[in-house]
């Protein structure tokens, strides 16, 4: 998945907006955002952070400045374990021409030494929105790692894979209200082939209200 592959596939799929949320890294965002901008595609600057509980949380931001500050925080909290390329693959950083301009040598598939709560606080401190990722997945979701979504956790949205999953979340969490929760149904694509068509939409007004600014 290179910057041009991702953005052009998004255009082919007819998507209006994409968020790029690499695992524990924001270093690819600059070039992908530039390619997205050149194609007229709305872009959210993101990151999928893995907490000490091995829970995945998405941070979404409206500028590279904010994700650069997030990267400084990640660097302070990520253990330095060298990547094993044979096992985990290459962690390359590309420019807007899809040319490799850097390699992340540290293994990114690790947990930061911060809790779910500290991570959400940091995202908010930097002016971002925190979404609990793929909340019903059997790997690295908050329900799998922590049993359930804690009452009062100050997240801004829940990511699910389907409408059915919304009902399952509601059935197991009487303290979560359907209408006062912002639900994200998205593909969580890790490969180009997994990027969805325009199957799901978030109401424009709801999204702008949630995001707080024009995107």
């Amino acid at each position, binding site marked *: 998945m290179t910057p041009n592959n991702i953005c052009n596939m998004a255009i082919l799929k007819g998507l209006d907006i994409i968020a790029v949320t690499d695992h524990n890294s924001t270093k690819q965002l600059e070039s992908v955002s530039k390619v997205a901008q050149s194609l007229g595609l709305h872009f959210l600057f993101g990151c999928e952070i893995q907490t000490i509980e091995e829970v995945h949380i998405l941070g979404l931001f409206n500028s590279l400045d904010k994700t650069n500050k997030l990267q400084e925080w990640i660097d302070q909290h990520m253990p330095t374990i060298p990547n094993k390329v044979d096992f985990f693959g290459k962690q390359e950083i590309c420019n807007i021409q899809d040319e490799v301009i850097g390699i992340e040598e540290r293994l990114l598939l690790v947990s930061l030494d911060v809790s*779910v709560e500290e991570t959400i606080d940091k995202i908010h401190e930097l002016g971002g929105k925190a979404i609990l990722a793929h909340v019903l997945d059997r790997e690295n979701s908050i329900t*799998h790692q922590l*049993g*359930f979504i804690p009452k009062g956790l100050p997240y801004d949205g829940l990511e699910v894979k389907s409408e059915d999953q919304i009902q399952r979340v509601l059935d197991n969490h009487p303290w979560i209200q359907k209408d006062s929760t912002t639900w994200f149904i998205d593909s969580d694509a890790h490969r180009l082939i997994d990027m969805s068509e325009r199957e799901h939409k978030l109401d424009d007004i709801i999204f702008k209200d949630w995001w707080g600014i024009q995107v």
Partner: protein
Amino acid sequence: MKLNELMNELKWSNRTPDLNLEREVSGVYCGDLLSWVMGNGLPDQAWITVQGHMNIIAVAGLREFSCIIIAEDASIEEEVIQKAIEENIPIFESHLPVFETAKLLIEKGL
């Protein structure tokens, strides 16, 4: 075996010293994945984990564990301790890894 007899011998740090330890320990459960522990733990077990999130108190209450033993100096916030006191769930720290912690419990007859 009573929890107080067990802990008197093991001398692990008791983070909730005001709680009554006059309760039965029937066995041991080890696990950090809370969805799994919620589904498989049994009443009166001593639960060994390195998971320090607040949700451990709810899980221990749900499964009626006799205590939580935090292994290997995993961090646990003061507010989690406070919640444990409110919910009457004793918390100990073994300072040893999970396997060594469990071995000591086996030596004591569990």
